[in-house]
């Protein structure tokens, strides 16, 4: 199964790449969860929720071409249910368009009928990423705050 998510963000490819790979920036729009890696091709990465202290996801950086393309294997770890879905693949593609960037996130190699938790968060993540890069602010809709910052109950519930 394959899922495609696309968004236009008024920023440069370099800033967008930084927002995807920098742990502190990433945590601002990614349900409070950053990502740790040295970002060399073939390296591993890991996402841990800082407040709840649980592993959210992990995988390998299969292709790393800053600031245009990042291909990662993805194993969701936030619950027993999603762990059972195995490993899928996430491809980030950044293309400059005028004064903006087109960002396409393709989440594929998902099992048929995969748990929608695996890919259901992308629209909110990308919306938050757009808000962060265009305004410097974090999304404050109740849905986006639910998993962020110190409010870790939602993850451990």
């Amino acid at each position, binding site marked *: 199964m394959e*899922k495609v998510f696309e968004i236009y963000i008024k920023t440069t490819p370099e800033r967008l790449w930084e927002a995807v790979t920098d742990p502190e920036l990433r945590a601002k729009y990614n349900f409070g969860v950053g990502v740790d890696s040295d970002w060399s091709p073939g390296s591993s990465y890991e996402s841990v929720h800082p407040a709840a202290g649980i592993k959210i996801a992990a995988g390998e950086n299969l292709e790393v071409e800053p600031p245009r393309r990042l291909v990662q294997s993805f194993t969701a770890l936030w619950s027993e249910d999603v762990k059972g879905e195995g490993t899928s693949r996430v491809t980030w593609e950044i293309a400059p368009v005028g004064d903006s960037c087109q960002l396409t996130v393709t989440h594929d190699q998902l099992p048929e009928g995969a748990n929608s938790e695996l890919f259901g968060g992308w629209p909110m993540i990308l919306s938050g990423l757009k808000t962060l890069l265009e305004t410097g602010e974090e999304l404050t809709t109740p849905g986006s705050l639910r998993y962020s910052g110190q409010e870790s109950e939602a993850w451990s519930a």
Partner: protein
Amino acid sequence: MDEVFKALADPTRRSLLDELFERDGQTLSELEGRLPMTRFGVMKHLRVLEEAGLVKTRKRGREKLHFLNPVPIRLVHDRWVSKYAEPWTAALSGLKQDLEKEE
């Protein structure tokens, strides 16, 4: 964002999005077979959805597959829905949790 509202304002186009939500990555022929409409009509509606960014296409060999891109709907939600509706639902789900904890 006008294009998104315009695209969503038509029941056939909403059906097409529902079809892709059910099964992503369909060809024009598959979509045509599910709607009581000519191939040309379906193509026309798909073009409006593509222009609004709600549908993305990918070539697979000879076939063109259509994928639902839900991100613009999320942007509409964050700008136009959540401000008006979500404080209530958040408060209500919080109340539900508090009540269930007390039991």
